């Protein structure tokens, strides 16, 4: 397995003191050093054209930004390698929900395809092998796109776009994956029926917290989909969606009770020892992305992720699949103190 850290940890959308720093290039240049110092040599980037529209090219989240600041995408990839991210961009996440705000289905499908193709081009030029695409916008926004139509027709139209993208990605040597956040129309186990409509080249993105919130068992999903998993996202949560927040306009901000839905690995309630066991059992040897999405403290999240990777997710200590992450963290920590060894498997 190859470990990776997602720059989706950087929250650009919500306001807290010092958010302004995140719009300038100096912040992102230094972030590479912080990620590398945390022991990660690969990054995932979220592909977010919304910053293009505001001319925020210091934020390296699109082809436009990279070419504005570094001349070419390859130039940006070289810059990353020179600054500690020696494995470069390993995954690009494209979430086209931005384009659903129009409420106009053809506009959504057209814009999604255009920018997803651009994300694939960017991946190819950066030497990145994976683009993972959020399957549908949130339930609330999807409803506006569907209008008087049916969900079945909407999903068929989306599947058509994904099939075209898969062919394009294939030409570029990039693997296309689909991601099913808990607020999509194909959340949790519903992804299985949707994937049946897609070309065999389209792989699955197993995102642990998103699956759990949607009521699916991530470890079981790994076993069931073995051989068709293109990327695994290690995300943690303590959120239980009892009030159907997934159906609201801002589903990652549950209106019935404010909470941080996505937490640093180990700070939630996911059974990661079981997930690690499932990955080992099925012989998964692909990319594992740590994504403390929208972190409250980015440096802390990088270091917490590294500690978690070394001591909890899979370590030299005995893995007890019945343990919660926090229990396992304690056990692994004790084992490490005894052995004094640092597991090398995830230092690749």
């Amino acid at each position: 397995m190859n470990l990776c850290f997602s720059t989706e940890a950087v929250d650009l959308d919500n306001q807290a003191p010092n958010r302004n720093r995140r719009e300038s290039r100096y912040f992102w240049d230094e972030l590479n050093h912080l990620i590398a110092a945390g022991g990660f040599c690969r990054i995932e980037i979220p592909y977010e054209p919304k910053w293009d529209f505001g001319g925020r090219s210091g934020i390296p989240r699109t082809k436009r930004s990279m070419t504005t600041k570094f001349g070419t995408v390859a130039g940006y990839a070289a810059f990353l390698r020179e600054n500690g991210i020696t494995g470069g961009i390993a995954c690009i996440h494209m979430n086209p929900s931005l384009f659903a705000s129009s409420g106009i289905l053809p506009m959504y499908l057209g814009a999604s395809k255009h920018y997803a193709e651009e994300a694939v081009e960017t991946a190819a030029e950066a030497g990145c092998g994976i683009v993972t695409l959020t399957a549908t916008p949130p339930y609330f926004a999807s409803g506006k796109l569907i209008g008087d139509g049916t969900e079945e027709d909407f999903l068929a139209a989306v599947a058509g776009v994904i099939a075209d993208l898969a062919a394009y990605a294939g030409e570029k040597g990039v693997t296309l994956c689909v991601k099913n956040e808990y607020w999509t129309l194909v959340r949790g186990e519903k992804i299985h029926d949707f994937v049946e409509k897609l070309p065999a080249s389209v792989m699955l993105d197993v995102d642990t917290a998103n699956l759990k919130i949607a009521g699916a068992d991530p470890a079981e999903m790994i076993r069931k989909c073995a051989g068709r998993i293109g990327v695994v996202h290690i995300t943690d949560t303590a959120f239980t969606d009892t009030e159907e927040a997934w159906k609201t306009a801002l589903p990652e901000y549950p209106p019935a009770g404010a909470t941080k839905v996505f937490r640093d690995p180990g700070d939630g309630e996911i059974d990661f020892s079981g997930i690690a066991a499932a990955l080992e059992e099925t012989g998964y040897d692909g990319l594992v992305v740590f994504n403390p999405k929208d972190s409250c403290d980015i440096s802390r999240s990088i270091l917490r992720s590294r500690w978690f990777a070394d001591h909890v997710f899979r370590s030299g200590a005995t893995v007890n699949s019945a343990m919660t992450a926090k229990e396992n963290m304690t056990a692994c920590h004790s084992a490490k103190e005894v052995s004094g060894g640092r597991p090398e498997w995830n230092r690749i």
Partner: protein
Amino acid sequence: MEQNIRLSHMSHWKTVPYRQIGNFREFYYEDRSNNCYYMDWDRILRYHRATGYEGIELAPWDLGEILGLFGTPAEYTAFAKDHGIEVSGMFHGCNDSHIAGKHGDVVAAGKRAVDTLAAFGGKHLNTCPGNNYYGNGPLDVEGLRNIASCLDEIGEYAESKGIAVGIHNEFFCVTNRENHRQLIELTNPKYVHYCLDTAQVALMGDDLIDFYDTYRERIATFHFKDTADIGVPDEIRYDRDVEIRDDGHRWFWEPGEGILPLEELWRHMRDYGFRGWLTVEDDGSPDYLAAMALSSYYINEKLGKIYR
């Protein structure tokens, strides 16, 4: 006593993801940081009131989330009113207005913005007249006339709804130092007003006091902020993606923290007898709550002794 100047604050808070956080203490303990203090409209609006503002100016890029949380503009307006805050206006951008073939689309978008603002009960549609300079400038007179024509048509429609369209000329806009006054002259004063952004005009290299004295009859409102950079060189203003600098250099500062002659301007406003909304804009600040308080103090305790 009724004051001549009503303070509003431009909403640069980005996404405010909650309407009202009811479990504030519990939420705080999740990471024991100040993040939860900036995540709901209830508290953001309380901060406005507590720091002496009567109004809020909306950013159009936030409307999707606002309407997602509140359902309708009227619901948001009522919620704000419960906090003692009115919607004073909204920002708008007339992209592609210099292109004759885009006239219909630009005007239609402008009219939709007017309708949206009317639904929120706002009075000022502060409008960037065109695209960025980079990739579009320099403009010929025909291009300027096209922009003016769009503004006139949107402005006439806005007047019929009780809304004032005000030109808001960014320092990196396609209309710039060499022709931004010409654009004003080309528009119909009956329908097109001016929103004087004190920092933007100075960054362009124009004289703030002379500009105010020349156009005071057309200045319907302000974006009030300071700067420490007067007359930014052409190669920066005309470059790509100028507003956010790679090294984090700030173009904008809270009123009183830069070098603009704001006290002199205030005396001219007093002499002319300006009355209406003045929107403080704290974009670029690392801490909006502190910036709101700093700005409010400066206006009330320093400038307010001259005129209020």
